[in-house]
């Protein structure tokens, strides 16, 4: 066989090569620090030292753009975290929840039901943004299997370098700057935007051939309900107050029936926009698709009261350690707000969110 000395040399060589590949991989993977911030949302949760939240939000941009954990804390002392990602589909949400429960046991899980309408994976970019941030685990493997598009290969999620290798010619300073450490782009998962774009038109509602949600979506919703029941968690289904894509009455009815059958709380905020005080001329940054900071704070204030009473969530503002942590978070929150307002003043738009739109 081969001499032991040679084996040792081979082992050393292999280790160095692996280290080199890992370094290259983190260099070549997109950083999402200065543009397309949505790509950085998932990985932030793991860098959060204080993983002790009573409420966990899961879902797509209708959660991470419309709710503000800092407001929930300041108004009701509710600790919360939003585990959202761009166009997060229901299987992403389910496996994300399954993985979160390994880190902590929230009292309430809030799931936005818009993703019930997608019965198949939509785009590779969304899959990557939802999955690349997660550390390797059995749950992640299951999530990958459930969400891959036809032309995607499983191994490129285990070794992302096989997917991002062609980025070598598009590397920018950002890729080197954020090679090892990443900044925080959200506030406990809330991606703040202060700019305003008033609502002008609501597109007409198109007829559908079939209004019933697909079986695969119901299957995952059942699994989610089951998982929460098993862990003694209250599952709350919500539909954020956005005017597009259209939320059909037939869909609303199905969610009401489902909530009733499984005695869950289901709130369609579209029906309570007046009570919440949402004004689509000032509270949205893209003419009604998502709320901006003022909208999100209004919605959080309204929603916080309901869940605190409904599930008697404790007001933990008197907990000395927690209030110190959340005070620091509130400072960052205010700093970001002021920075964005200043930028808006100066440029008329927010660089981080509009750089790609301008060259479109």
């Amino acid at each position: 066989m081969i001499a032991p000395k040679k084996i040792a040399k081979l082992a050393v060589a292999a280790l160095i090569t692996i280290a080199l590949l890992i370094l290259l991989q983190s260099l070549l993977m997109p950083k999402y620090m200065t543009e397309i911030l949505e790509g950085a949302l998932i990985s932030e949760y793991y860098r959060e030292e204080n993983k002790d939240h009573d409420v966990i939000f899961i879902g797509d941009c209708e959660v991470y753009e419309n709710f503000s954990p800092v407001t929930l804390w300041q108004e009701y002392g509710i600790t919360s975290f939003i585990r959202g990602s761009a166009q997060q589909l229901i299987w992403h949400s389910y496996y994300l929840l399954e993985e979160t429960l390994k880190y902590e046991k929230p009292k309430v899980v809030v799931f936005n039901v818009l993703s019930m309408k997608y019965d198949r994976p939509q785009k590779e970019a969304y899959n990557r943004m939802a999955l690349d941030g997660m550390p390797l685990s059995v749950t992640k493997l299951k999530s990958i299997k459930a969400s891959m598009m036809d032309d995607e290969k499983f191994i490129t999620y285990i070794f992302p370098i096989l997917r991002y290798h062609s980025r070598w010619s598009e590397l920018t300073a950002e890729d080197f700057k954020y090679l090892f450490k990443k900044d925080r782009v959200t506030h406990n998962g809330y991606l703040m935007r202060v700019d305003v774009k008033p609502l002008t038109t609501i597109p007409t509602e198109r007829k559908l051939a079939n209004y019933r949600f697909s079986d695969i979506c119901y299957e995952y919703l059942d699994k989610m309900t089951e998982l929460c029941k098993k862990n003694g968690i209250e599952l709350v289904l919500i539909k954020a107050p956005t005017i597009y894509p259209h939320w059909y009455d037939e869909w609303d009815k199905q969610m009401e029936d489902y909530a009733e059958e499984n005695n869950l709380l289901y709130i369609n905020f579209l029906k309570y926009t007046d009570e919440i005080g949402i004004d689509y001329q000032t509270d949205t940054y893209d003419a009604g698709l998502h709320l901006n900071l003022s909208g999100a704070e209004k919605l959080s204030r309204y929603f916080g009261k309901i869940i605190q009473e409904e599930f008697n969530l404790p007001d933990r503002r008197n907990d000395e350690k927690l209030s110190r942590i959340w005070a620091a978070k509130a400072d960052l929150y205010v700093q970001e707000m002021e920075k964005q307002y200043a930028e808006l003043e100066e440029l008329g738009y927010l660089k981080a969110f509009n750089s790609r739109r301008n060259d479109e």
Partner: protein
Amino acid sequence: MLFTSYNFILFLLSLFIIYYIIPKKYQWMLLLAASFFFYSFSGWDNVAYITVTIIATYFAALKIGQLHLQQESYLKENKGSLSKEEKKAYKEKVKSSQKKYLLICLFFDLGILAVLKYTNFVISNINSISRIFNAGEISFLDIALPMGISFYTFQSVGYLVDVYRGKYLPEKNIGKFALFVSFFPQLVQGPISRFDDLGHQLYSGHGFDFRNVSFGMQRIIWGFFKKLVIADRILPAVKTITQNPDTYQGIYVLVGMVFYAVQLYADFTGGIDITIGIAEVLGIKLKENFERPFFSKSTAEYWRRWHITMGTWFRDYVFYPVSVSNAMLKVSKFSREKLGEKTGKRVPVYLSTIIVWFATGIWHGASWNFIVWGLLNCLVIIVSQELEPFYAWFHNRFNVRGKFIFKLFQVGRTFLLMSAIRILDCYRNVPVTFRMYWSVFTKWNINELFNGALLKLGLDKADYFVLVFGIIIMIAVSLAQRSGSIREKLSARPEIVRYAAYVGLFISIIVFGAYGIGYDSNQFIYNQF
């Protein structure tokens, strides 16, 4: 299953591990199972076709072999009692029955290939003729060409003819023979091996030999480097140029030719490196298929260094039999009488050459592109043969034969000539190709090379940077190979240099390879032949 797919790499690694774990006498069975497993990915109907070819060739060869043995023992028994004539008559009788089996099996094997590969081509020609008389059209047969059928059919035919010629005795064990035909690395694009060469290597067990494995692995990685970093990266430009003949003319046609020559070389030699590398890891030595073809100074020399096993196959099983057949001897007698000794002698040789090149062309693909490709190659060889006296006169007039510049000129001329003819692979049909040849002279747009138009061919700056980097390495390696194998030289160098070379190459494939979403790794060019 593509060579450049993750599944194949997984399949390969697990095969290597199992191969060296199991006892030696089961190794050939493992290879057989692996080969059929590999082949099943291209569809079970393909497996059926290859099995049929194997069975037919096996039994025909067996029968011919038995007749050889019968003849030998019969002649030995009554050595004394037979006269010369009786012996000759008996031999004729045996020969003719052997010939019967040979022809039946040849007709069968080559028949399958012909039906699967050429039916649609024949139909389309009939249709185009009937369209002139606007008679009805025949609909096409939708049969997918089984993977590597041209290669394994030729390998089986070679074996059968060798047995018929008494070169060696047929393989008794059908499993072993099946392995010879379907040995998976060479199944897809050659090299076309000979039984007396490959057979015993496949069946004898091979112990783990670090040198074999390491050299084999290096060659595999080198093959992937050429395929993924160079061939697949330059492909978009070749496609853009050759699929839009109306927009890309003049200098672009030349660019297209050179690019395609690079792509085909990197793709084909890369694939063969992977094949030979795999065999080497398994302890099996396959024949080299290339010998730095682009350094040849004449077309004839080029065709002795490009796709060598195909060349030798056509020489041994088409060229020699044709040119030595009675029919051809009659032709040569007739031509020598009519046209005098000197030129008469050439007619049979040239006729056989045309036949061989027509066969080579049609074998490459069922379309006029390839037939004309074959004939053009033949024309160049014959013309340069005819111009021998002119060359001789030229050389003793200016003695430049040794000069480096002249050699460079010869290499350049052969490279351009071969690339020009080879571009027939890409253009939609022959007239388009000839229009493009003509446009090179008539449409003068050399300036387009420098005004950034090259960047609109589907390759950006980064691609060109990688291509230049890759081609320089390929040329450097070829130059170094002239004086001995690279891997030997490398193993003599200190560890750090060797480590840098191996890992550098490996990482450059991972990073600069044209694979994954957006590139969708392409089949080997020769897969579809």
